[in-house]
């Protein structure tokens, strides 16, 4: 498939902007002197890195919801699992610099009087292993879950609710100290990654650039999938599942494939998120978090990929601004967003912008984007 087909106009504009930001932010942080008006403070770099992770997560959800009609209310679980995989590596990296100075056991295990590492912690001292696990574990969970759910044709609201049950069950499980993932407090106090100090500006910028690359890669991969023949089948499943099945397609296989890919993208987002935020805890599994991801996608524009990324950044940015400014108003704003977007912006911000542009230039041939009915 040619690159020009992958990068259509909206994708081109978005990737261009992303590239611009990825170049300017490091320059602003590392090159500009702290007194300069163009200086980008370090916390802002980490914050923007976090937004990019959210954007990747939103793209992952858009892939399944926007193109295949699977409304997952449990995507936060895949994200958190990826985050935990990376968090486990970072915990091992601390080594004997922890409070208890135990070279093998993370602090919380020493605190719980464990005498050796649980079996599932082995291997996480190697970065490559943790990185693979951050993709494999969410992918595996999605595979098992999807294999059962799609094969028995659990669809629509029922599917949404059991995905929610999945993330809720995982949250309860990770809250337990006996699980061996730090319980309530999660994993934190990270020192460095691959030998780079996590507190240093250069590392933060590096992680930021990685997040931007991951987002661009995730977008292109998703675009490639959706623009392919397989992508057409996915859209037809979204719009008329039974009909697609009658036409002879194995609907379960397609759904399972895209669900697993999406879960792995979410895991990647989580793995990049943990070192930038400095903590991963069971709260990430909470059903409310997963539902919030859905509003990112809906706000930006479902089934547009770029819109999902845009939506995530818009919502996360307004959350940061509003909670800092008048905290009480944030839930009102978020709630209103849910309602107004579903009622008045069924195609999201991106759809709205493109529709207004088409209205302004009536002669230009509008490229119709077929929207989902359900």
């Amino acid at each position: 498939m040619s690159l020009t087909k992958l990068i259509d106009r909206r994708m081109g504009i978005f990737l261009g902007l992303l590239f611009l930001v990825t170049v300017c932010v490091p320059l602003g942080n590392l090159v500009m002197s702290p007194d300069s008006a163009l200086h980008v403070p370090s916390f802002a770099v980490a914050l923007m890195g976090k937004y990019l992770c959210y954007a990747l997560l939103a793209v992952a959800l858009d892939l399944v919801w926007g193109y295949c009609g699977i409304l997952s209310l449990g995507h936060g679980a895949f994200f958190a699992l990826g985050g935990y995989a990376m968090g486990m590596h970072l915990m091992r990296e601390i080594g004997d610099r922890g409070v208890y100075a135990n070279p093998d056991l993370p602090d919380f295990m020493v605190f719980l009087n464990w005498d050796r590492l649980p079996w599932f912690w082995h291997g996480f001292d190697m970065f490559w292993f943790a990185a693979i696990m951050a993709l494999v574990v969410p992918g595996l969970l999605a595979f098992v879950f999807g294999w059962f759910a799609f094969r028995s044709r659990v669809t629509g609201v029922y599917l949404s609710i059991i995905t929610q049950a999945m993330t809720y069950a995982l949250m309860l499980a990770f809250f337990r100290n006996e699980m061996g993932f730090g319980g309530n407090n999660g994993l934190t106090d990270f020192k460095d990654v691959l030998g780079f100090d996590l507190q240093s500006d250069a590392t933060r910028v590096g992680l930021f650039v990685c997040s931007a690359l991951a987002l661009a890669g995730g977008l292109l991969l998703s675009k490639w999938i959706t623009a392919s023949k397989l992508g057409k089948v996915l859209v037809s499943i979204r719009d008329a599942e039974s009909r697609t099945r009658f036409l002879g397609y194995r609907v379960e296989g397609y759904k399972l494939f895209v669900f697993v890919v999406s879960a792995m993208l979410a895991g990647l987002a989580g793995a990049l998120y943990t070192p930038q935020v400095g903590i991963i805890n069971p709260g990430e599994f909470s059903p409310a978090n997963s539902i919030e991801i859905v509003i990112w996608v809906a706000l930006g524009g479902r089934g547009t990929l770029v819109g999902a990324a845009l939506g995530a950044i818009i919502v996360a940015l307004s959350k940061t601004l509003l909670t800092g400014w008048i905290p009480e108003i944030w839930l009102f704003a978020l709630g209103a967003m849910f309602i107004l977007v579903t009622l008045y912006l069924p195609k999201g911000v991106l759809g709205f912008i493109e529709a207004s542009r088409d209205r302004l230039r009536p002669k230009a041939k509008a490229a119709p984007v077929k929207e989902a009915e359900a």
Partner: protein
Amino acid sequence: MPLGFRAASFPKDRIMTRLTSLFAPILMLLALVTALPGAAATLEELMQRLPQGSYDDRAALVMEIAATGDERAVPLLEALGEGDLQELKSDGTLVRVVKEGKTYTAYDPLTGESLGEIGRRDGKKVKVNNGLRRAIRSALGIMTLRHPDPAKRLEAAEAAFKSGDPDQLEALDAALLAESDREVATVLGAARAVAMLNSDATEADQFEAVTTIAAMGNQDALGVLLPLAAGEGPVAEAAADAVADIERSQKVWGLAQNVWYGLSLGSVLMLAAIGLAITFGVMGVINMAHGELIMVGAYTTFVVQEFIRNTMPEMFGWSLLIAAPLAFLTAGAVGVAIERGIVRHLYGRPLETLLATWGVSLILQQTVRSIFGPNNREVGNPDWMSGAFELGQLTITYNRLWILVFSLIVFAGLLALLKRTPMGLQMRAVTQNRAMAADMGIRTGWVDAMTFGLGAGIAGLAGVALSQIDNVSPNLGQSYIVDSFMVVVFGGAGNLWGAFAGAFTLGVANKFLEPVAGAVLAKILVLVFIILFIQKRPRGLFALKGRAVEA
């Protein structure tokens, strides 16, 4: 009354005696001022005679002291029994002497008041022998066993049961004869039986004792009988039989207890979920704001109670009955508003509805937080909702019982509404085939609004009930939303019996898993079970049949 339960209140009483001993000097002073000289032998006079006479005379004297019933005699007799009581050579005063390191400190034996340091040779020990000690022990036992307050007597009897000292036998016999309170008498009988077992009583007496204890049938009885059953001889065999009996009955009661807890949890789940089942069944819409409607009901209860507290406190017992219809109407009104304002525009798009109602839930949550503050609000239990009663070995709290009854009433009411009223008929028609119902002239839009309002109203009622057992906070709804989804999905939407069966099955299953796996793991297991169950029956336990399924 299980013994362990009463014994738990010991420390509090100990604090009380500490307090009284703090005030004792003042009381003493008052007593000295008001006491008339030359009255019948007072405790002080009797005490002064303690060092004199033969051991038998002094044993009689100890009994006489006990007979005064004066509480101050307890430390005195204890000191005597320990051999700490000394007679000062200078003036013949009796003091309790405690050796601390190398110094000797004298205390008033009655009040515990410190009288300062004394020399090692200043006092002469008041001698005791084993016979006297026995007399002291039973005197002490009698003192508390004869206390005018039945609660104190019960406590003493339980202490006697725990100690099982055979020396108390006579005191217990005497106390048992004098006892009028049935509950205390039962425990006294048990204590007597334990003392009997520990004494060198005849085999017949011991058999009788085993039977008495076995009749108690609780954990304490097991504690006494288990060591006995380990021995040999006919008594041990009888004890072993009794142990087996008790363990069997305890297993049954444990089962019953789990069932009760499960039903109780099930009733809560059903209240929380049944409104959801109605909305989902008729409209195919999951109302994510359902939990917040429960919260609205709970806060309505809070407001009603505040109003009653401030204006007519004597009506407090009625507060819940007043709150219930108000909560139904308030939550119902909010529900109708949600339906007319939002849900109506999103028909045929269930996932969008889910998102929009989630938005509503956030707004409702924050509204309540802004008005009532983020903390828990105090919602009181009326008298008839508090306390508990015993059913065999089950402890049943009234609030749980009433909630179970309430949930059944709500369920029956809804069932009647759906099956016996024109509105119910229309609702069922819309559930089964919306298009056909519309063709028959049913105003489906109106039915939708009413159904949504009804579901929301039921959530309000659930809020009234939940305010009695849960914290009323802005997060109240959140904690129930996942659970109620599970019930609906498990039971099958659009069928009240589905919600009924789903709620009670999940409730009981949860409570049976809890002792085995722990509370959190039990919940996880139930969630996993539901996820797997949905694979087998994607439309729940009681799936709707017909065309509605594919809608």
